[in-house]
């Protein structure tokens, strides 16, 4: 039984390493994809897209565009519904999705 388990563990170790390298490859590939100038220009959603998901007659939809490494702090909801957003690399843009 012990030899069987050692063999299984080796196979699982190979499977885990394979997954790790695939994750690494995918992450790198995705970064290149999002930074490719050709894609960058067309990587947007429209206000119409947002309205198709959030019913604008009942919902207020606030959009936050923040530079990388911006910190968002959400207070413990038991005490207050509070969100603090703090950037170190540039101004943060916040706007409401227009109703129509």
């Amino acid at each position, binding site marked *: 039984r012990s030899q069987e388990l050692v063999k299984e563990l080796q196979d699982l170790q190979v499977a885990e390493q394979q997954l790790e390298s695939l994750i690494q490859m995918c*992450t790198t590939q995705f970064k290149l994809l999002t930074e490719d100038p050709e894609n960058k220009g067309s990587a947007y959603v429209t206000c119409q897209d947002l309205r198709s998901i959030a019913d604008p*007659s009942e919902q*207020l939809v*606030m959009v936050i565009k923040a530079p990388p490494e911006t910190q*968002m702090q959400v207070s413990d909801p038991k005490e207050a*519904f509070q969100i603090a957003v703090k950037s170190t690399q540039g*101004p943060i843009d*916040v706007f409401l999705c227009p109703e129509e």
Partner: protein
Amino acid sequence: AQECQNLEVEKQQRIERIKQKRSQLQELLLQQIAFKNLVQRNQHKEIWGPPSVNSTIQLPFLVINTSKRTVIDCSISSDKFEYLFNFDNAFEIHDDTDLLKRMGMSLGLETGKCSSEDLRTAKSLVPKALENYVTDMYTKHDLFLESSQTHSALDMA
């Protein structure tokens, strides 16, 4: 017996880690499929001309939605580096990935509502080496349906 027991524990831990890594990889694939689909859709639309000014939101972004009756008290620093929002009602926060999935950009793979046609499209958007992970997502929902089937740990891995 003790050694076997330790090996069993180690095996379960390894299987758990492999499951987590699989879902992390599948999440990355969903993001990639959703992103490429969005770009293709927009480039296709742009043939008829660019979108109207101020009607687009460039990725990445976040969305906070709340009831229209919510009062939001907002303080902003002069350099716009800091914002503080106080709501008097509950809110929800969603990131762009979540919105793209809701817009159907991930072809319903994560909800099991993907047609075989969409599955072909999804597989064409990822590297060949990863196609079977996309197929897995598609069949995974079938697997849950056939929950009676017992898969050996290695199969699952």
